[in-house]
């Protein structure tokens, strides 16, 4: 067992899923011979052939729409949208069709599809390549939304997403594709889609995040220990359906909550978490709920991208504000 990057873990999960289930097919732009612009599908076209892995013309809405047709026919399409900034044209298909095909037909037709897409910034990419629209998908009934934060979790969550009988939007943190390394056992074990993950226990403040922002969040937790603040860190991982209990239980014993995300603050998924705690967990709160998030601006061009991205310092400051609160 050796250390692999997050993108390699994705690749392992795809290979495993295709091996165990002939209904799994991959489609998207450049996923074939080229193995995907980030190499997530590397080698799969060569090993499984053109009937299991196919390049599509440049048309994201149709990639989603064709996946719906394939899924309704019993295939398990895993489609790649090259960057999440180009997935906005898929929202109509996801919202008007994938998310409600089962309900519209009383279960007669279903949509077991996965729409994968690299998301998030911090890679100094050209404009439109650093988007974090997870909240939009999480607002869509009938859809599941998953965001891994490490190679091992990427492997297990993607396997579960592909095996799930319903449509899953699977957002892969581009920033972690090569940066994150971890030993991953290719054992075919999925990770349940109905639970958040506790990454670090702590008594003083609960830090909740997902995807690449857990890097800053965990670093912040480390720094806080220097000031004798023990932060508990939760990786939401599955934004929809949301496991509120794990978060509520944590806040119940820490009394403090900081939600960290990269998407713009307003209507980001942090708002949903804050709202649930402000409803069910309010009596356990000892301080205002803090959201450390991207600003309500577009992702700036690379030269000033760093201004936008939530930093370790901002997370630490947010946590301290909750501690300082009397």
């Amino acid at each position, binding site marked *: 067992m050796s250390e692999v990057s997050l993108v390699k873990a994705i690749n392992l999960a795809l290979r495993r899923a295709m091996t165990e289930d002939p209904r799994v097919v991959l489609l998207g732009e450049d996923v074939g011979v080229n193995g995907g612009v980030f190499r997530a599908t590397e080698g799969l076209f060569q090993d499984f052939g053109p009937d299991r892995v196919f390049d599509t013309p440049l*048309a994201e809405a149709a990639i989603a*729409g064709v996946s719906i*047709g394939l899924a*309704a026919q019993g295939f398990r399409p895993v489609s790649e949208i090259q960057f999440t900034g180009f997935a906005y044209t898929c929202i109509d298909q996801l919202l008007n069709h994938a998310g409600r095909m*089962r309900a519209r037909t009383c*279960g007669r037709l279903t949509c077991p599809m996965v729409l994968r897409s690299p998301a998030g910034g911090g890679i100094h990419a050209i404009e439109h390549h650093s988007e974090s629209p997870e909240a939009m998908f999480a607002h869509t*009934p*009938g859809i599941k939304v998953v965001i891994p934060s490490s190679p091992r979790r990427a492997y297990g969550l993607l396997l579960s997403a592909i095996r799930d009988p319903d449509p899953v939007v699977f957002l892969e943190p581009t920033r972690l594709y090569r940066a994150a390394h971890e030993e991953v056992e290719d054992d075919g074990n999925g990770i349940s889609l109905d639970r958040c993950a506790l990454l670090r226990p702590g008594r003083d403040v609960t830090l909740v995040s997902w995807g690449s922002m857990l890097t800053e969040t965990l670093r912040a937790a480390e720094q806080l220990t220097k000031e004798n603040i023990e932060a508990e860190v939760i990786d939401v991982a599955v934004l929809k*359906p949301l496991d509120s209990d794990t978060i509520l239980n944590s806040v119940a014993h820490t009394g403090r909550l900081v939600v960290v995300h990269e998407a713009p603050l307003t209507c980001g998924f942090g708002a949903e978490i804050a709202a649930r705690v402000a409803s069910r967990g309010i009596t356990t709160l000892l301080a205002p709920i803090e959201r450390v998030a991207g600003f309500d601006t577009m992702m700036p061009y690379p030269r000033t991208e760093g201004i936008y991205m939530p930093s370790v310092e901002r997370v630490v400051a947010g946590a301290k504000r909750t501690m300082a609160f009397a």
Partner: protein
Amino acid sequence: MTILAQFTISSTRLLDAAGEAVAALPPFAQDPKELEALYRAMLLTRAFDTKAIALQRTGRLGTYASALGQEAIGVGVAAAMQPSDVLVPSYREHAAQLWRGVTLKELFLYWGGDERGNDFAVPHEDFPVCVPVGSHAPHAVGVALAFRLRGEKRAAVCVFGDGATSKGDVAEALNMAGVWKAPVVFIVNNNGWAISVPRAKQSAATTLAQKAIAAGIPAEQVDGNDVIAVRFVAERALEGARAGAGPALIEAVSYRLSDHTTADDASRYRDDKEVSAHWAQEPVARLRSYLVHQGLWNTAQEEALLQECSKRVEEAAASYLATPPRPAAAIFDHVYAELPRELAEQREAAIATAEGKP
């Protein structure tokens, strides 16, 4: 200047407006039973249409889109399909749905606002009607691709309107179908109008068939009021698709004799003279004249058929009206295969509210 490519769009008509054969009819048209089946299906559709509008006018059905005048398209196309093919229809193709085996009651339930109207026992793999115009075109390509990948000799049929041809989804779907040689036949039900937008303002294209040229797909036009011609060209395209020849597009030219839907008042934007002129072209009278001239049909049979159709429609309507709505909890039954915890709580709340204790 070098010439790189040339394209021709041609049109097929076998019966003229008076019901006279203007060309050799295909083999199936030599069989009176086949022709009678087509005729009966068009009449049943019209009977359903009439009843649906009556129910809507009296507040017992939702907004309804009539197929009046376009029955030959749905019937001709469905008659050309095999049961194992899959229909991916728009909201105006009751004729095709009925031929495929969707029941009158299921249609009433759908238009009455009940999801169970989409839970067809037969045809089990057909899609429910698509309301977001054109967005179902890529679904049909996916279905066709599934057939190709499994090596099945089946085809998908996607029907949409003239307005839908302006939608990006349709262009993207046509192009993908072309690249992948997917066994799908696209049918444009060109009824001349997209609500108040006339065909001429929808596109500067001379024909809508030529939309397929952009995708490198063979295309043709057919007289959509001539059910024999529609079935003939659709059968040819479907046989090709099942045999691996790839996709095709057929523009069936007909006319929307009704308002767009029961919520529309076409007199605001459309000249009645235009409508009455098109009544002379309509498909039911056209086939009837042919059958009568051929001595295959008489007034007694007509009478009997009309009664049979209205009886079936009345029974279905009664059974629909007697069907109680689904219980509150039902709206949570099929959101996901398994109800997530957070939704289970919402389900309890919905039930409590329905029982008057929110």
